[in-house]
């Protein structure tokens, strides 16, 4: 019987030898709720004899307690790991399962069919080489089937099995099978699949899973396992050009400088000429070092350490590449991203982008459109919400090297990380570089910040006032500026209201606009610091991420956050501009503190208790702090 390890090997040494030749296939299963994904995986585990007696006992007990098969064994329970989910009867996260036959080891990502869990499907698909798309024979190709197939294709999987499940409930009808197969194939011509294999199955009864079903004598294709064991997925990646992101510079002593990494594509041999794309410098590979001795060649997927002929400057993040087939290096590209966070995408906000082994600040410079994953329609949008897919332009603080994702799944992928919470908020695939990045270069100037500051006889820095409307930011900032001016300092005060009359006249008060508002002010403040000025910025600036972004624009020690901590009740009581009254009356939308959040600073350099301190006291505190930190001379 193919694929089962049920005979006790007599010659264990010979057996282990054959086991060492096994390859590995990662695949995902996807489909709608109740299409039988978990049942299919449970069945694969069951048939490959991977269920142990105690697991069987647990399974039998669970099947009786919470099973959906009327007390019969519910294979799905094997797979639905977390207790809470067991009780709900649905799978809600990505679960990885393992089984193995004589030919291959398999890693299955079980991914949920619920609409809100698109991110989990994308997660499972990212490492898979093949997808089993499940449909219920009674229902045929549904909207969800299309969505899953689109995501599978977006994540670069080119091998698909369409498992037409629950054939036992349609009397193993060939006509039903053919109709579903035809309609799926029509739809799939729009996607980038290399191969689709349609198989009629019953996961519950085991038809055409491991064993050919006696009920479908009209079907002559492979069983699910037959196909999984033989599908060729290796040759594509090894024939691509050599790429290896440097993970770690290996320097045990002064005579050894190796570059450690996992080969993302292609092969490498001593003598090969490779390039470090960020500098364009090339060198020859002299040795491929491993714990088990030097190698004559290394393949895609191997973790190695390379030694080079020449001393060229290479650090973590460099994408070592074949010199004759170089990757793209750019600081702007178009990408398709999947939003994976509860909070929405805010174009203009600085996020961290991690691609390969490189992490750099990046922002979505333009969201072109979002994709309706059910119809593949393009929809205009200013933002993306959880589980939405969008096409956007991304600009980076520094150029990186990459390949378009369709050419290379390892070197064309990235994740976005929130600066403040460190959550992974999006996953993206690079479509292509934007050429305009090549044409804007930094104009190098000869008079620098230090020179300008020296002439003014001061240290430039930003004093960033944040707090609720009416907290007293502008009053205090004003007094601090007067004080600094009287001390002979060159200053400038950027005030929220004033800037909104000019530079930021086009912006409103939505989250997206607030982010852009702060971005522009922060960039302006940065230019002024560059000009040698002491800049006072007085803005509500409600989000930590943007304050953090502003901080990152200037050098360390040049940014001081001043939190005017006045409780909302007091601000509202003061209501100098009558804005709280309007907001409470519903005449003013998105008002900070009322219907738009204010994120308190956790570690502001200076905090002023707005309720107890007078503006004069606050000014004194701030000026003292500046003196203590050596930013202004002591008086």
């Amino acid at each position, binding site marked *: 019987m193919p694929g089962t390890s049920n005979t*006790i090997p007599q010659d*264990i040494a010979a057996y*282990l030898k054959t086991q*060492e030749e*096994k*390859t*590995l296939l990662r695949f995902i299963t996807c489909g709608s709720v109740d299409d039988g994904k978990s049942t299919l995986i449970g069945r694969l585990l069951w048939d490959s004899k991977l269920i*142990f*007696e*105690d697991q069987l006992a647990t399974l039998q007990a669970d099947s009786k307690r919470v099973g959906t098969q009327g007390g019969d064994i519910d294979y799905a329970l094997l*797979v*639905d*790991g*977390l*207790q*809470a989910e067991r009780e709900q009867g649905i799978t809600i996260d990505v679960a*990885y*399962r*393992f089984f*193995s036959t004589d030919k291959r*080891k398999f890693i299955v990502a079980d991914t949920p069919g619920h609409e809100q869990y698109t991110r989990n499907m*994308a*997660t499972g698909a*990212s490492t898979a080489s093949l997808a089993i798309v499940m449909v219920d024979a009674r229902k045929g190709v549904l909207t969800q089937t299309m969505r899953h197939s689109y995501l599978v294709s977006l994540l670069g999987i080119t091998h698909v099995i369409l498992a037409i499940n629950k054939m036992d409930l349609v009397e193993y009808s060939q006509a039903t099978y053919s109709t579903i*197969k035809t309609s799926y*194939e029509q739809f799939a*011509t729009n996607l980038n699949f*290399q191969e*689709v*294999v*349609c198989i009629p199955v019953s996961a519950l009864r085991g038809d055409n899973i491991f064993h050919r079903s006696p009920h479908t004598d009209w*079907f*002559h*294709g492979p069983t699910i396992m037959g196909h999984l064991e033989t*599908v060729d997925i*290796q*040759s*594509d990646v090894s*024939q691509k050009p050599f790429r290896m992101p440097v*993970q*770690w510079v*290996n*320097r045990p002593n002064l005579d*050894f400088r190796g570059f*450690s990494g*996992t080969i993302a594509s292609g092969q490498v041999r001593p003598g090969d000429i490779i390039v470090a794309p960020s500098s364009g410098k090339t060198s020859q590979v002299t040795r491929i*070092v491993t*714990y*088990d001795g030097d190698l004559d060649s290394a*393949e895609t*997927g191997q*973790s190695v350490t390379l030694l080079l002929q020449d001393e060229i400057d290479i650090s973590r993040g460099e994408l070592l590449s074949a010199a004759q087939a170089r990757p793209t290096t750019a600081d702007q590209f178009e990408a398709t991203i999947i939003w994976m966070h509860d909070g929405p995408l805010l174009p203009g906000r600085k996020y961290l982008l991690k691609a*390969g082994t490189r992490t750099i600040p990046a922002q979505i410079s333009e969201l072109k459109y979002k994709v309706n994953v059910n119809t593949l329609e393009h929809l205009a949008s200013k933002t993306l919400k959880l589980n939405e897919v969008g096409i956007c332009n991304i600009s980076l603080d520094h150029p990186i090297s990459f390949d378009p994702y369709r050419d290379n799944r390892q070197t064309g*992928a*990235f*994740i976005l*990380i929130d600066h403040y919470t*460190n959550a*992974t908020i999006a*996953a993206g695939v690079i479509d292509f570089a934007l050429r305009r990045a090549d044409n804007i270069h930094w104009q190098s100037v000869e008079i620098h910040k230090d020179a300008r500051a020296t002439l003014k006889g001061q240290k430039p820095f930003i004093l960033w006032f944040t707090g609720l409307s009416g907290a007293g930011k502008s009053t205090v900032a004003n007094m601090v500026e007067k004080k600094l001016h009287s001390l002979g300092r060159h200053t400038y005060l950027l005030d929220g209201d004033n800037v909104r009359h000019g530079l930021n006249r086009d912006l409103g008060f939505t989250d997206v606009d607030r982010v852009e508002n702060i971005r522009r002010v922060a960039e302006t403040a940065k230019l002024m610091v560059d000009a040698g000025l002491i800049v006072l910025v007085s803005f509500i600036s409600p989000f930590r991420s943007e304050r953090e972004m502003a901080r990152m624009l200037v050098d360390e020690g040049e940014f001081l956050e001043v939190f005017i901590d006045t409780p909302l009740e007091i601000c509202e009581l003061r209501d100098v501009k009558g804005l709280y009254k309007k907001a409470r009356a519903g005449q003013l939308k998105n008002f900070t503190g009322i219907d738009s959040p204010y994120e308190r600073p956790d570690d502001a350099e200076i905090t002023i208790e707005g309720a107890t301190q007078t503006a004069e006291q606050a000014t004194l505190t701030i000026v003292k702090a500046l003196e203590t930190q050596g930013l202004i001379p002591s008086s």
Partner: protein
Amino acid sequence: MTLSQSSLNSDCSKILKTKAFPKIMQAPSLTHLQQLEAESIHIFREVVAECQKPVMLYSIGKDSSVLLHLAHKAFYPSPLPFPLMHVDTTWKFREMIEFRTKMVNEHQLDLIVYTNPAGLEQGINPFIHGSALHTEIMKTDALKQALNKYQFDAAFGGARRDEEASRAKERILSFRTTTHRWDPKNQRPELWNIFNTRVRPGESMRAFPLSNWTELDVWQYIFQEKIPIVPLYLAKDRPVVERDGMLLMVDDDRFPLKEGETPQTRSVRFRTLGCYPLTGAIESTASTLSEVIQEMLVARTSERQGRLIDRDEVGSMEKKKQEGYF
């Protein structure tokens, strides 16, 4: 891929888009163990490159042995760029501690041994206080104390997803709050081999390089790489007592024999190793590695069954993990 290879019959399979790649040469595919090894090495390097102060939790068992072997491979020829830490409950098998000492000497390991001082003072004893309390104080609490004491921001562990249902859904890099809690509903999505290692001060990561290994993979790898393991994994005549359906080894004189109990000598081995009062042996004559693997292949009982702690209540491992147990 050509049409004749991929489709066993043209009725069911159809090439939608054929890219006619001329095959330059057939690349030798990596075996599954080579792929698992490379993936584990990648995880080790990524965490070391990005975290401030990593540590490897070393429990002396076979998974730790494999983990240590992989760590040496990941950084060769450099020495290990992190210390090892053993949370010692003082109830480990004597042979485990001997093995630990031997490994430290052979590999010049920087090993921290930590025991919960409060637990030690209270004389926590699994025979008296039961497995749940013992595990909580001497393992879970001890681990948290040690991580706080040394301010590690990343800890490598040898857990595998195939061990237990709740582990199957845990990430390779598993985020822990400042109180070391795991929140299964709020895990970072993990795509490709791009890991988000970022934590704020006080928060930490658990890194599981063996996530995708199965018990059989571990044994095959030990066999293939000739990795040293504690002799308790191989069958030998040992003094045991049968209690509550488990075979417990009388490893030292702290074992309180109940009335009528006399240790019997039986040929036994262990599938997992932990505290000796909580770890059940299985009867076996497999005294070599290949015999152990042979037994494994026909085994019908899963690995963690020998451990008392999982059986306390349904879903108990998931609860322990949320509280900070590894």
